[in-house]
């Protein structure tokens, strides 16, 4: 898959806009608060129509897909920007599209496209990223139980929740604004990356609408998890590339022992290895985005996710190391990437989850 000219132009424009509107000081301030997010990014996302990119045209979207959303995610990752709503908003779009309830689609998709509604996707529980039998239960139109560490949880207007029901697993939509304080409690998690808006969400009878049930719900959940993972992989790859380039620039500028530290092989080779990891992750991301809807999409998504986790982790670890002391100051801000690398690695299933998923695809053997 090669990006076409329109896609290239879109990436350029996204990069330009984000570079102009991203402010490191603002991002650093977010770390010390819970419940606040990168509002400038979100306003930009709405204004630029990124929220509408992958929504079908009939519902007010642009009818594009993972490739274009991935390009935006990569640029957002580059500047450690990105309120998490873009990724999870896409998750909600996918979940809605998996149902065939035209009323629901007409109610929510246009508002998601316009960015009027922010979404969370709550699958993970203590027992894993995607428990086959969630402890959260769906009974008589209402949800009971707790989802832990929901990204966007503190600000989302709707949530897509996996739950157990007599019909097997269900994917349910909760209109969070409609639930009373007794029916829904959000407990903020003081995190190392507060802009992700992590919350434990406890449902005590919050009303919910079932989108899919049984095998169809499990399939839909896996597909949208994979789609979100591909977007996150783009974001991670963008972050990894930014770290690599920051370290490269620092290595060219900083002198020790009478020469730029970039003339020392330990630094050169570390950077060359980072370059390799970034390009491999990028290639897997592009490939996965292009395979959306194909039989090997899950496999491609897992490849993208695994190589992007590795690239971002290694690039932050090594870029911080190359920066020496200035890599570990608050104001230097490299820890924005360090923190983001970790939160993105945990959200949407950690590396072990995706290793097992990919191994199952490749071997036919479960873990």
């Amino acid at each position, binding site marked *: 898959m090669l990006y076409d000219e329109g896609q290239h132009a879109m990436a350029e424009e996204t990069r330009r806009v984000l570079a102009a509107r991203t402010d490191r000081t603002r991002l650093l301030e977010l*770390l010390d608060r819970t419940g606040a997010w990168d509002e400038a990014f979100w306003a930009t996302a709405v204004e630029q129509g990124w929220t509408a990119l992958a929504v079908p045209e009939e519902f007010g979207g642009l009818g594009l897909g993972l490739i274009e959303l991935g390009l935006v995610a990569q640029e957002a990752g580059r500047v450690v920007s990105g309120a998490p709503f873009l990724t999870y908003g896409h998750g909600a779009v996918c979940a809605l599209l998996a149902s065939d309830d035209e009323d629901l689609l007409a109610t929510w998709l246009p508002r998601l496209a316009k960015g009027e509604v922010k979404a969370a996707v709550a699958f*993970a*529980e*203590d*027992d*894993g*990223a995607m*428990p*086959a039998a969630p402890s959260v239960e769906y009974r008589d139109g209402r949800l009971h139980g707790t989802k*832990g*560490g*929901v990204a966007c949880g503190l600000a989302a207007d709707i949530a897509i929740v996996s739950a157990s029901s007599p019909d097997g697993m269900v994917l349910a939509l909760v209109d969070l604004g409609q639930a009373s304080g007794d029916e829904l409690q959000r407990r903020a*998690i*003081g*995190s*190392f*990356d507060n802009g*992700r808006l*992590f919350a*434990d969400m406890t449902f005590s009878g919050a009303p919910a609408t079932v989108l899919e049930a049984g095998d169809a719900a499990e399939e839909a959940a896996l597909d949208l998890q994979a789609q979100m993972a591909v977007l996150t992989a783009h974001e991670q790859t963008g972050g990894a590339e930014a770290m690599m380039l920051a370290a490269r620039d620092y290595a060219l500028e900083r*002198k*020790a*022992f*009478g*020469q730029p530290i970039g003339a*020392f092989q*330990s*630094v050169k080779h570390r950077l060359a290895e980072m370059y390799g990891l970034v390009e491999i992750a990028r290639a897997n991301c592009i490939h996965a985005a292009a395979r959306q809807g194909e039989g090997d999409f899950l496999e491609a998504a897992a490849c993208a996710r695994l190589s992007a986790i590795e690239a971002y*982790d290694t690039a932050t*670890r090594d870029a*911080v*190391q190359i920066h*020496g*002391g200035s*890599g*570990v*100051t*608050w*104001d*230097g801000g*490299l*820890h924005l990437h*360090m*923190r983001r690398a*970790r*939160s993105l*690695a*945990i959200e949407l299933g*950690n*590396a*072990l*989850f995706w*290793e*097992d998923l990919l191994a199952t695809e490749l071997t036919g053997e479960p*873990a």
Partner: protein
Amino acid sequence: MTDLDAWQERSRAWLASVAPEFGREARAGLSQDEDLAVGRRYMAAKYDAGFSGITIPVEFGGQGLSPLHKVLFETLEAQAAMPIGYFGVSTAMPLPILIRYCDDKDWVRERIVAALKGEEIWCQLFSEPAAGSDLAGLRTKAEQGGEGWTINGQKLWTTFAQYSDYGILIARSDPALPKHKGLTFFWIDMKAPGVTVRPFRLANGDIQCNEVFFDDVAVADSQRLGPVGGGFSVAMATLMIERYAASDADGFGPPIGAFVELLRSHTINGRPALRDGRVRSVIARNHALRQGLDSIRRRAMLIMEAGQEPGPEGALNKLFSVRSRQKLSELALDLQGSAGLAYTEGAYTKADWAASWIGAPTMRQAGGADEMLLNTIAEKILGLPQDHRPDKGVPFNQIPA
């Protein structure tokens, strides 16, 4: 070993007796200023109990005991999580330097006792914006004139300078000499006119490090430590002490046992985490690594006890242990799922995985970056050639910036 065994028993008993007053639980939730105050009280109590300045001669207020006594006590003290962080630099490097290079012995004794009791704090003014790994590249100037010296310039990374009463400082006294020459060592009154301290925040949120500015700070020649132009070797001696002081096979992160306990209740894709091959591999390999480092340390102690010089393999500890800590901490966060997202600033790195993870990069820099340690091993132990250094032998003021 009976004398040492007794010492260890006595140390253990005393630490247990004061743990309720000074231990981790007692200090939970304190601000840094409050915690420092507790720390000062702990230092005073430790002095009274006879565990301060273990290797410092009795005539200077110390205990006059062996390095082995020191290691034994400090290992237990770290396990007990006593509030000693603020005094680590203060009591480790400056005091031996004063004893060795300062002529006014009464004054030295006063300072040492005050530092050991936690009444005064010393800092160490070495690193500069343009001189991290390459210490000899520093630019802070010491100009001689009249009775003494005038200091101008800027230091960086000075730990706890914001609380310090005194500091030891290295400055360039002759820029016309090649860079390793022309450096001179002083002690400084941190309250003197012209000294400005600006704390800054680290990636983990801690406010421990400072920029320190010197603006025409007057220093008497009696504050000079060692000969004019002899500063580099004084600094090297100081850094060697620092390197060996930082010895913990867990890299000052949580031990493997804590990783095992953390995972006991977790599952990975539906199976108990401790039965997963990846987790078992990580546990086994990190344990084997840390056991090896620990055996090296114990062997070095036995050799020191026998009055001999330990082997060079002691230099491996920081390099290997901190890298092990870094990756293990990342994995510990990942494996906890949503619980891994939580973070409390200032948590204890040996007990908290998030604190351990976010602080690891700082540890990989402190006391010699990985790359410097690898170079040292390659050159000093294996006899490989030095890297190319275009600045070698060139007068400092002729090296292109």
